[in-house]
């Protein structure tokens, strides 16, 4: 063979595709995933603790007055001084954020799918959607209050409006990333539309949808807080505003920490869910 085609065979070797090395991948996964996870977690904790310590130290050394800046310790103290106050308000914010997130996700996936499957909709609506997306969603909050009043709904809708867009885009992108060959395979075998969607396209889009959800969940928490800023009588946004009016920085920072914890926990839950449901996603191109 090499006699017959010297040019070709060297080319072939050079062009040998850098395909995922199949023997190595699963081994690495089993052998190292736990230690790597632990090491990463430890690194993250060290990082967080380090930053908090620096922060505490800076506040101490610079002798900042309590109405300008407080350290993490006094925020933590404040939290444990009245944990039920923070937890109750956190619970309200969480409910608003989750409702908004769930609604935003459902609508976002639906909308992304419609844009993908109905070209006419794509041509008419995609530019419009992008234009709407450029409006800062928090600017819409007053409008939602006009529509839905001062209660739970208006905050959930602000959260929804913010959570919606990443899912539209990621659903659309995920569906668009289905390899052409798979669509052709479906067509050659006369697969129906529904068959093709459920057996290939939606599953293919799931990793992308999950990345969208990871972005959306913290956006939804932020949206709920903004709603509470504008028309709240409860929730962490309200806690922050109240603390602001009383120049109560420890409360404010305690609320920040609870908010960060909420977003982190949700982010983590979605990541775990993605890992459980889609263990294959690291191996698809």
């Amino acid at each position, binding site marked *: *063979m090499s006699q017959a085609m010297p040019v070709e065979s060297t080319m072939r070797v050079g062009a040998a595709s850098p395909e995922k090395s199949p023997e190595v991948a699963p081994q690495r996964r089993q052998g190292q995933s736990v230690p790597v996870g632990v090491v990463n977690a430890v690194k993250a904790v060290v990082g967080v603790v380090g930053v908090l310590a620096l922060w505490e130290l800076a506040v101490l050394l610079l002798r900042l007055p309590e109405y300008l800046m407080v350290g993490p310790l006094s925020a933590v103290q404040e939290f444990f001084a009245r944990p039920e106050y923070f937890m109750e308000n956190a619970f309200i914010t969480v409910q608003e954020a989750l409702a908004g997130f769930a609604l935003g996700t459902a609508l976002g996936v639906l909308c992304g799918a419609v844009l993908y499957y109905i070209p006419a909709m794509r041509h008419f609506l995609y530019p419009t959607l992008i234009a709407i997306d450029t409006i800062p969603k928090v600017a819409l909050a007053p409008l939602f209050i006009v529509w839905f009043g001062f209660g739970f709904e208006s905050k959930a809708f602000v959260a929804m409006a913010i959570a919606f867009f990443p899912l539209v885009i990621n659903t659309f992108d995920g569906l668009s990333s289905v390899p052409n060959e798979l669509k052709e*395979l479906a067509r050659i075998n*006369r697969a129906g539309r529904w068959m093709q969607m459920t057996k290939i396209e939606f599953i293919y889009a799931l990793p992308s949808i999950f990345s969208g959800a990871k972005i959306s969940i913290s956006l939804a928490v932020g949206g709920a807080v903004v709603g509470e800023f504008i028309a709240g009588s409860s929730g962490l946004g309200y806690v922050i505003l109240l603390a602001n009016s009383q120049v109560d920085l420890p409360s404010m920072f305690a609320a920040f920490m609870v908010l960060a914890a909420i977003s982190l926990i949700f982010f983590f839950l979605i990541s775990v869910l993605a890992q459980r449901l889609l263990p294959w996603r690291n191996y698809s191109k």
Partner: protein
Amino acid sequence: MQDQPVISVQDVGMTYRSRDGLENQVLQGCNFDVASGEFVSIVGQSGSGKTTLLKIISGLVKNTAGEVQVRGRDVNEALHDIAMVFQSPVLLPWRNNLDNVMLPMEFRKRATRQSREYGLELLDLVGLGDKAKKYSYELSGGMQQRVAICRALVSHPEILLMDEPFGALDAMTRDSMNIELQRIWQETKRSVLFVTHSIPEAVWLGDRVVVVGDRPGRIIADIKVDLPRLRTKEHRYSDDFARYVAQVESLIGVSGAIS
């Protein structure tokens, strides 16, 4: 019946029209037949329209001129008899290998226990019987392409269209895949249309080598390869083999220009 070709390509032409109205004639006046159980290789420069030709025969793309018949029927009625193997295996990462092989049967709503057993048989045939429950990321590129070949064969197609199926493999894997494919072809008795960039591969595998010329793509030669079956590795070093390769090379006008 035996004399009737399985595939008959008559005066097929293809002109793509872009959105701005520009016409791009890709194929013109293509004529050739494929007999039952025949292995026909197709070679030609990049962009000469080989993939387009396969897509027309598979019914994925409608030709703008001429006619393609499968067992005397128009392609669009004969889709069930045709299967395709692509350059990359495109297996679904969330399905194990057997389930990947079964996908066409699920598409056709004919995934029965018998068809599943046949899927397993096919995996056995390509030496992957023990890998049925494994996932594609646990396989090498060559193994993945073998699974893709099983996926194409599972619906008992009369015709197997292969578009550079080994193009992404390294030279050594490619050689063993050629031997493998010849064996599969012998055992399953399909008609195969095999597009490749490697002239030695085309000659070694093919009963015939169809050479597609460039701009617009047309058939400039249809060479019968009179080498004995089953062919072995040693045939690659025979004088006859070298002559065929040289003949095809001169027809395409290569000086390493194919890639």
